[in-house]
């Protein structure tokens, strides 16, 4: 079980959180202007890297805040935790 440092509450057990998939996938400004393919990419396509991955987590059983984590999907090492709206920090 991961120990996830919530930016609002500090380190808490993974069981308190919900996973929210890849981060920095913004809802398009004007969906009507997108082609079917562009819209399908927004809906259905996500990266699945082996290595550092910026992803969203929600502290559902705690402060209920969404935030972002850079986690290595191969080792589970958490490189960075940052708040919604902040840019992805540079990590090793």
């Amino acid at each position, binding site marked *: 079980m*991961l120990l996830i440092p919530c930016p609002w509450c500090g380190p808490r057990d*993974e069981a308190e959180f919900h996973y929210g998939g890849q981060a920095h996938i913004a809802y398009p400004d*004007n969906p009507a202007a997108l082609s079917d393919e562009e819209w399908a990419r927004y809906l259905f396509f996500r990266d699945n890297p082996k290595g550092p991955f910026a992803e969203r987590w929600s502290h559902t059983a705690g402060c209920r805040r969404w935030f972002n984590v850079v986690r290595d999907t191969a080792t589970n090492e958490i490189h960075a935790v940052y708040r919604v709206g902040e840019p992805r920090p540079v990590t090793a």
Partner: protein
Amino acid sequence: MSGQPYRREGATGKTLRFRFDGRDYEGLEGDTLASALLANGVRAVASSIKLGRPRGVYAAGCEEPNALVQIEEPFPEPMLTATTVELYDGLVATGLPGQGRLADRPDPARYDAVHAHCDVLVVGAGPAGIAAAGVAARAGARVILADERPAPGGSLLGTTETLDGRPGHEWAAAEVAALEALPEVRVLRRTSVIGHYDDNYVIAVERRTNHLGAAAPAHVARERVWRIRAKRVVLATGGHERFVAFAGNDLPGVMLAGAARTYVNHYRVLPGRRAVVFTTNDSAYAAALDLADAGVEIAAIADVRQAPGETWAARCAERGIELLTGHVVTAALGEGEVSSVRVAPRGDGQAREIPADLLLVSGGWTPVVHLFSQAGGTLRYDEGLGAFVPGEIRQAVEAAGFARGVTTLRGCLEDGAQAGRRALAAAGFAVPSETSVPAAEEEPAAAPAEHLWLVEAPGDDDYGAHFVDLQRDVTVADVLRAVGAGLSSVEHVKRYTTAGTAHDQGKTSGLLTSAVVAHALGVDVGELGTTTFRAPYTPVSFAALAGRDRGHLHDPIRVTAMHEWHVAHGARFENVGQWKRPWYYPRPGEDMEAAVLRECRAAREDVAAMDASTLGKIDVVGPDAAVFLDRLYTNMMSTLKVGSIRYGVMCRADGMVFDDGTVIRLADDRFLVTTTTGNAAAVLDWMEEWLQTEWPDLRVSCTSVTEQWATVALVGPRSREVLARLAPGLAVDNDSFPFMTWREAEVAGIPARICRISFSGELAYEINVSSWYGLALWEAVMASGEVTPYGTETMHVLRAEKGYPIVGQDTDGTVTPQDLGMEWIVSKKKADFIGKRSFARADTSRPDRKQLVGLLPEDPGVLLPEGAHLVETSSLPEPPVPTLGFVTSSYRSAALGRTFALALVSRGRERIGERLYAPVGAELVPVTVTSHVLYDPEGARRDG
């Protein structure tokens, strides 16, 4: 001791009586079931799973591959190893053929869980673990020391080694007692660490009363699961001895050399009278000498090496033990147990048969790297040890002592102390300038081991009795067959042969299996690698994992304010998520069908009431609340007037229906949103996700108020009349209180919010009061005696007759509002809302999409099963049979006087009037497709 013929002279302790395989025996306090059986000369303890061969005790700990037993009394428990079952008075057990039987009665014992945090967790209380824990604990760190055995000492328990001039196990006991007296130290005995996960999250199982049998106090949890989060972990898990593949290596009487040494020294039991020793390394010599000193005749030592350790050879000579260097054991012989051992020089030479009842085997020692590997560590092959040892690891974990390949007692103590120092530094403590370890005796200089895995068989032998996995009955022949079939990875061979998949997970045999695979492939063991180590390290009972989360504590139970009335009035309940909802209220003599038909008639023809409190309710408040709801729902909410109500549907971005419910505008900046009962939490999550991650600029807050309100749905043509009597201050005529509006008034003297909404098509009201008054309101509604209570089944029938879908029953995440026949709920005016863009995708406008329709079975008495598929033809073609769709809801209707169903059917609306067929069992039931609205399609009834 006449009852225990193999008990050593002078062994003392309380006598315990036990029964095994139907015979009564005596053992001593401190015995395991295995040592007690050996003391009584019981050789065959179990039989093998596939071949039914007799099997005896092979090891002395959790690595035991053979001696599987079932405890019968005091409480049935299957699949335990006799080597880890502590003996108690009254124990009744039987040997197992590889499979046990679950208890036929409920387990009366309690199981519990504990959460703990520490600076340093030390796994294993052998020399290295105790040394590490001692250094960390004396510097003030919070230390947990866990060990699977009843007493600390690890390897010291089985040897005659001394520390600081006294027996090693005495030092261990005294040192651990001293550490335990420190305020920040916790020693967990009889505690197996079974899993090592991310961020040093470690699961251990503590067996608290198992060893007490019937004397176990009822108030103490039998087992406790420890969930430990440690800053730093020291894995001092020691090693397991492995055996060698030769013919008959599974016969009772064949035993690992180190295990025999433990039985002699620790349990005071002789595992035989006359032994042959077969070894690839020096360690078996200590065992042979300890056995010889205890009175076991050592007939010969067959050492595969030409040059064993000189000191050991000299000590053998002193005792007159015949040493056969460059020899192997080619076969253990005997009927049902070892009676002789065939020994031969390696290569050519004359074989000899030596009479013996015991054959000690040592194929070398394997570090226990399970937890290190589970924790994410890499392993590397150590040529000297002939085994895999810990390599790199990212987590704050290190192995110490033999677990990382340190072979001497002195080395293990020193290694443990160093690990303790590093753990202190890593956990932020001051590291003492020096640490001392107890003085160990000088050990003989070690001669290198020679890693022999497989004793070659004569040409006519098919390797069918050269076992590699005793518990799974896997032989060298099986492995060769797997390799011959083209498998070249140990993972594949494991799955093909099942080697390493038994209760012991190949602790003594995994490396041997790999080595035989490597031998067959002509590669090195190190090159081939290991199979993946996975939790649990040792078997764990489901009862321990379940802990207290059983029965009514398995999941929270939610009940409404009116629950006790429902119970008192004989309601049958259905589970909706965690809620207990009244399903129907049978009267004496009524079955479900009769009760539901009666309740439906009351709602359609008279007046009826349902407890609707479980509907999800969310307060949506803030200056931007209307904007927010416009983005969330497919229809317009911002135009809703204060005092009015609107039905709404929410979709996911892919355009599929996610939830539906009503939106009540309480003020310009305040809405009350209702959700389906099962989706209440998901809808709140959804709202918060969008507000926080996409629209943080919107000034809106959302609060769940589901439990703050109790709701009574009052339904039927006479509902207005009943409400008027209960709420004399409320103007209830249709003009004053029209459909889809809400009013505040006192109902039965209780402040209430009354909504004129209908989920049945009838004139109806939903009366909401503070949940404190829920029961009082319900009782007031029921007091007149003219209102029929109804449950969820009637609610389902009534809504289905009107074609109202239930999200999650008539939809499954692939259904759009348009598929449901609800184009009217999708706004054309709004620039955007969640899901809008998806309605322009080619997929959502496919003409062959499944659409919600009604079905009327041609026989009006036939009730279609929900889930039944629909086909076009009156007889089934050859499979695969193309299906047009499936039944989502199916009921008997009082109003229609017949059965009916809702279904999702490809091109359903085009098919209205067509006949389709539902395969039910062997029959094809003819049905006619109709509109999904089967009752009152004009909506004439909602105003009463």
